[in-house]
């Protein structure tokens, strides 16, 4: 059988609170290959965020399996990420520092972080925003300048090759 980029096999999620049980995901199987783009659509509360958390390894499903390139995912998959609808930036850091944190986590040496972070902001049209700008100010100002994608949208997940 061909190896998929991401594969979910018979994933179910039951949420328990006290003695009440809620079946949020029931027996979901799907496969995603390199270069594919998948959109999950559904009404509020149907389990989209739950599925994203399980696919990225943030959450272990009640039952079922998650495979990344054929290997079972244990813990958070370092090749996956989620862009949350709340943006989830560290508010005490500037926009530039937020980008640098992500690079620091990937062990990019300090000297190189600033350069790469500036390059990344430039590429997404946020150059000139890099000064001492806080994420709060970005959230306020960015829509006015038309650089803010996906307003009102939900969370998106990215699987990187």
């Amino acid at each position, binding site marked *: 059988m061909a190896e998929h980029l991401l594969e979910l096999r018979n994933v179910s999620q039951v949420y328990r609170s006290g003695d009440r049980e809620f079946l949020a995901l029931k027996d979901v199987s799907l496969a995603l290959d390199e270069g594919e783009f998948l959109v999950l659509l559904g009404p509020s509360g149907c389990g989209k965020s739950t599925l994203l*958390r399980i696919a*990225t390894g*943030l959450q272990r499903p009640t039952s079922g399996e998650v495979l990344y390139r054929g290997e079972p995912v244990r813990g*958070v998959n*370092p090749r*996956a*990420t*989620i862009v*949350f609808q*709340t943006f*989830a930036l*560290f*508010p*005490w*850091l500037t926009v530039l520092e937020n980008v640098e*944190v*992500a690079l*620091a*986590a*990937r062990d990019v040496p300090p000297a190189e972080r600033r350069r790469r972070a500036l390059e990344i902001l430039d590429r997404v049209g946020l150059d000139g925003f890099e000064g001492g700008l806080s994420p*709060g100010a970005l959230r306020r100002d960015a829509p006015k300048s038309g650089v803010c994608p996906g307003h009102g949208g939900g969370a998106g997940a990215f699987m990187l090759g």
Partner: protein
Amino acid sequence: MGLVHLPGGLNLAAVLLMLTGSQWYILFNTIAGARAIPQDLKYTARLMGLSRWQRWRILYFPALFPYLVTGAITASGGAWNASIVAEHVVFGGRTLYTVGLGAIIARATEEGHYPLLFAATLTMITLVVAINRLLWRRLYRVAEERFKLE
């Protein structure tokens, strides 16, 4: 109460009493702070693959900072109060005093030594106000301006 017989033991006991009284303010404030960290921010820290130390430095410490300051301010207020009662003990028919402002106030009250009571109280008021202005207020401002979770 075996501490009483050690040299400086009563001082130590007084400090311990003030600490046990005030740690709760800090503890419960910290718990409240931890609960207030947005879930998405915690998820993002994990997805980025931040190490434990990085997570503390970049997420938990800054997010908890305002709560720690609030806890410490409340606690220090409580500790000033406690110092007056903690620094003297009636023990086995004898009254033991530690060296301290609280002890002076307690003793002056007991002995009706009003000029001393007045001076000591004034000193404490000045100290409390000075520490408030020089330390707590500054920390509070930093907490408000730098480490606020919107």
